[in-house]
Each structure stands twice: as structure tokens, then as C-alpha cells.
């Protein structure tokens, strides 16, 4: 746990910087700068507005803490604020919401998504870890764009209780930090079985090392040249440290993106069904209306991406096409997981985290849907298969950070943290702010 002397002016300084970079929706004004943790807006913090970046949850003050939040508080960490995100986690740039976080390295660029605020908070606050969440790459992506370490553990190692669901079978609570050691400390405090989450277990987390780094050829298409040269530099350094780099071909991996979007949208469309404007969050006003009309009124508050995913998700699980889409995607997930697991038996998988550096905010807005969804091509496979992965800064191009992503087998999470800790001995991360 990082500790320093308290700074009485901390909350004030944080608010000032937040006005510039838009990374927090709620700031805990009593936070004074020692052993801090921020919480992604889709994790419930008792007494603080938690709206998962959505207008429809405006004013929702959860009556309970998410398990991960409670365990951080019980361990003596101090809650610093809620970090902004794409609405319900639907996005790769942090732009699908009302508060768009800016990249601390270049304010005209995005911070990534969907845990945009969590990555910026980590990049600007010294003694801090961010509790974030990844469904298809929402930790790796912004960690890479903002030059911090982002760790997504094996599915089911950290309780999801208190997480406002995107896609329950894919959602994983994870941690971002400035050093792997900070992440490890927080991970050790929040992991483990929980009476309130049936999918979370006490499985033993191992630390089995390997000296083999595997690259899947199909994933190296369409990667920006600056990112590639930085990644190649990383590989040669690793070879210098005794690692062997090998290549594998895995044809089916091209289907990971459609399978991911089918499963995640199917689940998301059921999770979003509950927002009807009369129990919590934004309140419907006209109770004289018929339920269907009242319901439709309330749901006009969803952003365009949320509406799109409700419509597509409802379609792929409807009876007449369910086998063709939803069931097929589930079968693909099982097949991919077994293929990846066999590769990971004696090696790590390694790749750049994102195909580019953080795009400009207006560039991101202009991307076609297919292009935007394809930005996740490198982060989706481990997320779809519930595999632990970590993104860490491996270079800089024109002042923008570049991240690499390492994947290990189920429950071998410590091996990833060990790897990055040893990387940090020879590579210094850059930060523009140190609150």
C-alpha cells in the first residue's frame, strides 16, 4: 500500500485538474492524498452517486458497497472518487457518455475506454490505485492509451457484487496502478470468494513462470507502424533477458470480435431491461401514463450506443435466430478458450495492447462502427476466454504512450504481475502529473 504524508490541499488540487481532464464524476472532498483508491462509476459506493456513465441512473445512490470497494475500505485505503466511463462500458474511447475524459499526455486525444477516468486518475495521482472493470478490454485499452499498468484478473477471482452489469459472463473487476506492486497489493486484498457472487471462487492463484513468449500471427494485422516498432523493441529486450519468442497461427481468432459482441450485447440487452424510471435513478414524471408509454419515456435517456446494443442484443437472442447467433457464439467461446489454453500451457501470449496510440477525440468520433469495434481485436480474445491479462507501458511515440499486453493461463495471475515487476526494473514509465 503506497503511503505518504497527508496533503490537506489534495482534494482542491484534484478538483482543479479534474476540471481540465474530466476524469471523475464524484470527488470525495475529505480525501487527503494517502493510500487512495478510485472506483469506476459502474461499481457501487454506498452514499455516492453511481450511474455507470449513464443519464438513466442519474441520482442513483447505492445503499451498499460493492464487495471490492468494501474490501479496499476494510484494508485502510481511502476512497477518492468515482471515475468516468463510457455509458455502461459500451465504448473504446470514453466518448459514449456525457463527461469525456481527456488524455493527460495530449488533451486533444481520448483516454481510451471504457475505464477512461480510471486510467487518467492513475496517470495523474501518485499514491493511488484504480478499481476498474473490463468486459472486452476496458482496462487494457485505457491503460495503454494513458501509459499506466492495467490488470484484468481471471474471470471469477474478484467478486462482481455491486458491479452495475454490462455482460455478466464477461465482466471482470480489475486494478490499474503505476506499478505492478501496487496492483498486487490491492488485488490481494479484494480477491476471493464472496457470499454475494456465485461466480466468484477461492481458486488458488499461481505464479508459474515461463520463458516462452507466443505471438498469434492473425492478431498482428493492421497494427500501426509506430506501435509495431515499439513492440519489436520490447521483444528484443525480452530476448536479451533470456525469453524465447515464437509465432503461432490461430485462424478462428478472427471470429472473436463477432462472438464477443453477440454474447455481450445479448447479456447487456437483458441487464438494461430493468431501467424503467420508477425505482431508482432518473425518475419518470407522468405516472398517469400507461406502463408501456411510461417505460418508453424513461428509456429515451439511454445514449445511442446503449440503444444500439439493446436492439442488437434483443435480436440475437430471439427464438428464431438464437441458435444462429447467441448459441453459436457461446460454442465459439468454448472452442477459443480451449485453443488459447493449450497454447498458454507453456507460454505467455504477447502483443501490443492497442493497434494505435490514443486517437484524437474528433478522429474517434468519426470512426465507422466496424472500425471502432475492431479497435478491440487484441483485447477481446483474453476477455472472451476469461484469461488473466495485463497491459503495461513498453514505449513512447511522439510523446504518446504505447502499451503491450501479456496473457497467461487461468488463475496464473501472479505470473503476469511478476513479469511486469521485473520489466519495471529496466524500464521507467513517464507521468505528466503527480498529484
Amino acid at each position: 500500500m503506497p503511503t505518504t504524508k497527508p496533503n490537506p490541499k489534495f482534494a482542491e488540487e484534484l478538483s482543479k485538474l479534474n476540471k481540465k481532464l474530466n476524469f471523475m464524476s464524484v470527488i470525495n472532498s475529505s480525501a487527503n492524498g494517502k493510500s487512495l483508491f478510485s472506483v469506476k462509476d459502474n461499481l457501487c459506493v454506498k452514499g455516492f452517486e453511481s450511474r455507470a456513465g449513464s443519464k438513466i441512473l442519474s441520482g442513483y445512490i447505492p445503499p451498499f458497497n460493492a464487495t471490492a470497494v468494501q474490501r479496499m475500505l476494510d484494508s485502510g485505503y481511502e476512497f477518492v472518487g468515482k471515475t468516468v466511463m463510457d455509458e455502461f462500458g459500451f465504448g473504446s474511447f470514453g466518448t459514449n457518455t456525457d463527461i469525456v475524459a481527456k488524455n493527460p499526455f495530449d488533451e486533444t486525444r481520448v483516454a481510451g475506454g471504457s475505464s477512461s477516468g480510471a486510467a487518467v486518475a492513475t496517470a495523474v495521482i501518485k499514491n493511488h490505485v484504480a478499481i476498474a472493470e473490463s468486459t472486452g478490454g476496458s482496462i487494457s485499452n485505457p491503460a495503454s492509451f494513458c501509459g499506466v499498468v492495467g490488470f484484468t484478473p481471471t474471470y471469477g477471482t474478484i467478486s462482481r457484487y455491486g458491479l452495475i452489469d454490462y455482460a455478466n459472463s464477461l465482466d471482470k473487476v480489475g486494478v490499474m496502478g503505476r506499478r505492478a506492486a501496487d496492483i498486487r497489493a490491492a488485488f490481494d486484498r479484494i480477491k476471493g470468494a464472496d457470499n454475494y457472487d456465485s461466480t466468484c471462487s477461492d481458486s488458488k492463484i499461481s505464479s508459474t513462470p515461463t520463458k516462452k513468449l507466443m505471438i498469434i500471427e492473425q492478431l498482428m494485422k493492421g497494427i500501426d507502424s509506430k506501435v509495431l516498432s515499439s513492440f519489436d523493441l520490447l521483444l528484443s529486450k525480452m530476448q536479451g533477458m533470456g525469453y524465447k519468442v515464437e509465432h503461432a497461427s490461430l485462424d478462428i481468432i478472427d471470429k472473436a470480435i463477432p462472438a464477443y459482441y453477440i454474447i455481450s450485447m445479448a447479456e447487456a440487452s437483458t441487464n438494461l431491461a430493468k431501467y424503467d424510471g420508477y425505482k431508482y435513478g432518473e425518475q419518470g414524471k407522468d405516472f398517469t401514463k400507461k406502463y408501456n408509454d411510461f417505460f418508453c419515456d424513461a428509456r429515451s435517456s439511454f445514449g445511442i450506443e446503449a440503444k444500439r446494443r439493446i436492439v442488437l442484443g434483443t435480436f440475437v437472442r430471439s427464438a428464431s435466430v438464437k441458435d444462429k447467433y447467441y448459441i453459436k457464439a457461446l460454442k465459439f467461446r468454448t472452442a477459443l478458450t480451449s485453443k488459447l489454453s493449450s497454447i498458454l500451457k507453456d507460454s505467455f501470449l504477447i502483443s501490443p495492447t492497442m493497434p494505435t496510440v490514443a486517437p484524437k477525440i474528433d478522429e474517434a468520433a468519426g470512426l465507422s462502427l466496424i472500425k471502432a469495434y475492431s479497435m478491440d481485436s487484441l483485447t477481446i480474445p483474453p476477455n472472451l476466454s476469461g484469461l488473466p491479462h495485463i497491459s503495461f507501458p513498453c514505449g513512447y511515440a511522439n510523446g504518446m504512450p504505447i502499451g503491450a499486453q501479456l496473457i497467461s493461463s487461468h488463475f496464473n495471475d501472479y505470473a503476469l504481475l511478476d513479469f511486469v515487476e521485473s520489466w519495471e526494473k529496466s524500464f521507467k514509465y513517464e507521468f505528466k502529473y503527480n498529484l
Partner: protein
Amino acid sequence: MKIGLEVHVALPTKSKLFCACSTDATEPNSSICPICMGFPGSKPMLNRAALDYASNVSRTLGCMPAQMVSFVRKVYFYPDLPKSYQITQLQEPVGVDGSVEISSKKVKIRRIQLEEDPAKIIRESGYTLMDFNRSGIPLLEIVTEPDIASEEELREFLGELRSILYYVGINIEKELKVDLNISLSKARVEVKNVTGIRNLVDAANYEIKRQTELTSKGKEVVQETRSYNEAEVRTESSREKESDEEYGFIFEPDLTSYKLPSSNAKVVLASKVAREYSRKYGAKEKTILELIQFDRESYALMDHAKDKAEMQKIIAVIELLKKYESTGIGNEKFEELLEIAKSGAQINAELIKKVKSGQRVETSSVNLQSIDKEITTMIKNHKELLKEYEKNPKAFNFIVGEVAAKLKANPRDVAIRLRAVLEKGFKD
């Protein structure tokens, strides 16, 4: 005619299906939490006690034992459904392919499944109230094949099913909620949400009449969903809420798969027991069934019968206990009552009360008088022998034996009377 039923019964667990909220709150909205209210961030946790009940019903109905059970989300939009989806079962239900035997046939059970109850809607004039106490109460849905072919079969089936549920420990005082499928020809008509047995039979009869009339007039019966209007004793066409296409079932990703708990609880089928006892002891099957169909205690008492005569006495005593509404007598006291009955004494409310409270019970006065009379005669004839009766147990027992044999009385009763008479006589 073909009738199929979907019977919903609430399971008597202490807490709800997916949270720790109590199931027996009365004050509206007093037993609710983030889970059964579907608050963002909450997750369900399966109540294993509900799975135990479901497993026992499954076994009693002779279903194929499920390897694993899992849950799905059934999505529809209605204000009583806090998450806008119901957690229910589809691919791996608690049980499939069971049956309920009635006198004319076996009614096949297609499936039984666990699911959560929605909240209660209370419609007032001009406004609607919601009570979420019911949200998340465990329900067991029992789906039959359309094997029921008459009102008699319907009644018998319901009696049998309720008896089965009773013996598994499910409270049948709460009314059953039933969806009724009924078809006289091709078109299948579904009558949704009929509460209580009387309404169900009335709804079925109404539909039989309505469909028969339509057919006889050469009109076609429309395949549709109808609702039952209790006040007017008729079914009415209702707009179909949702189809399977729109429910869009997906696996419930917040729950895992669960092994169905095994159980060695005794399976009791009251009608089978009645048939067996009737064959064995010659008593009327219907009489026995009426006594034990919804009465665990009477069933346990009958278990003691050794022969035909005793069974008759047992049945007589149980009927008297029922007549005087006396429950919970227990084995020992029942035996005592049975002995009294065997001695020929009249059993009435007062006597039952005495036996239950553990008081000494003298057998009936007519009987006592004849015992006393015989004892007096014997004493006269054996004066010498009885002079020192306290020191001479042989003499005492001799008299008891003689009197008991002669009157076919209970030796214990004779002994009590003899001692009383002798004491009285010597004091005089």
C-alpha cells in the same frame, strides 16, 4: 378433450429464492432488499432449501433425476418484474418426464421448474400499488401433458397433486395458481392465472361449454390466451402478453450450474397407501384416502395396524379424533385411546381430552358396573381366599383372570376395580 396444466406453487422456505429476505412478512414492502428489488449492482444467490423441496417433488413425481440444474432469464416488461426479466429454468429444469397416477390413467408430467415470483400488483381505482414482498418468493412450476380428459379427472388429479405436495411439506393452504390449456378440437386455448381449485374447475367447465357450443354451431375455436373472470364465472379473450420469440431466453450468467441434492426422505403417495391398506385390511379405499390425503398424523397412526380388526378400530378412532377436531395426539396416547376403544367404551370429546392431558381414564360406567357385579359375585364365592389378598397375589390374580375371561374385559381394568372394591369392603 385435452386439458394440460401449469401449476404454480409457492415453496415454504424461510427466505426468498435469491436473497435472505423473509417470506412471511405482512406489512407491504417490509421484506425487500437490493437483490429482490433488482437494484443495479445486486446479484442473486440461490437458496439451497428451495432446491431441496424441488428435488423432493421431482422424486415423488417419478421424474428423471436431473444431473445438473441451471437457470435462464426470461425477459418481459411489466411493472411487477423488478429486473424486467424473471429468473426461471429452461434447458436443465429440476425434473422432466414424471407422472401422477389417478384411477383411470397416468397423467404425465412434462417438467417441473424453479422460478421467482414477481411482485404483487394492487389495483385501486385511479392508481396502482406495488408490494415487493412477494418479489423473489420461490415458485415451483409443474407442467403436465394434456392428458386430463374430464372434470372428474381434473378434480382427481388436483387432489392427488395437492396430496403429494402436502407430503413433501409444501403448504397447500395457499391457493394454487394455474394456467390451463384446453382444447376440444384442434385449437389450443390457454386460460392464464386461475387461482384456486374451484375457479379452475369452473374455468374448465366454462371453456368446455363455450368450445362445444362454438363447434356445434359450425364455428371455429380461435387459438388464443384467455383470462378468467371470477365474478362472472367466465373466461375472456385477453391480449397475448409475449411469445417465446420475444422472451429471448439467455443463460442466467450470475448463477452457475447446481447439482440436484439427493434425498432419502420417504416418498408418500396417499392414494397408493389407501389402495394397499384397502387390499390388506379390507377397509374402504375411499375412507382411508379421505383420512390420510392431507393428514400426516393419521397416516402415521395407520402404520401401526397389525390386522383387519385393529385397522377397523384405528379407522374408527381416527374418525372420532377428526370429528372432535383433536390433532397431535401422538403415538402413545393414541395407543391408550385405541385400548379404551377395544374395551368397548364410548369415546367422546371429554375422554379424548382426558387421554391427551394424561389423566387416568376409567372405562365406561356400563362396563364398570358389569365388572363390579361379577367381582362381587366372585368375592362372595371366595371370601376365605381373599382375606389376606395383600399378602396373596396369586389369589388376587386368580380373581382378575376369572372375571376378565368371563367378561372379555381388559385385565388391567378388572384389577383396578377389584382393588377398589376390596378396599371399600375391608374398610366397612
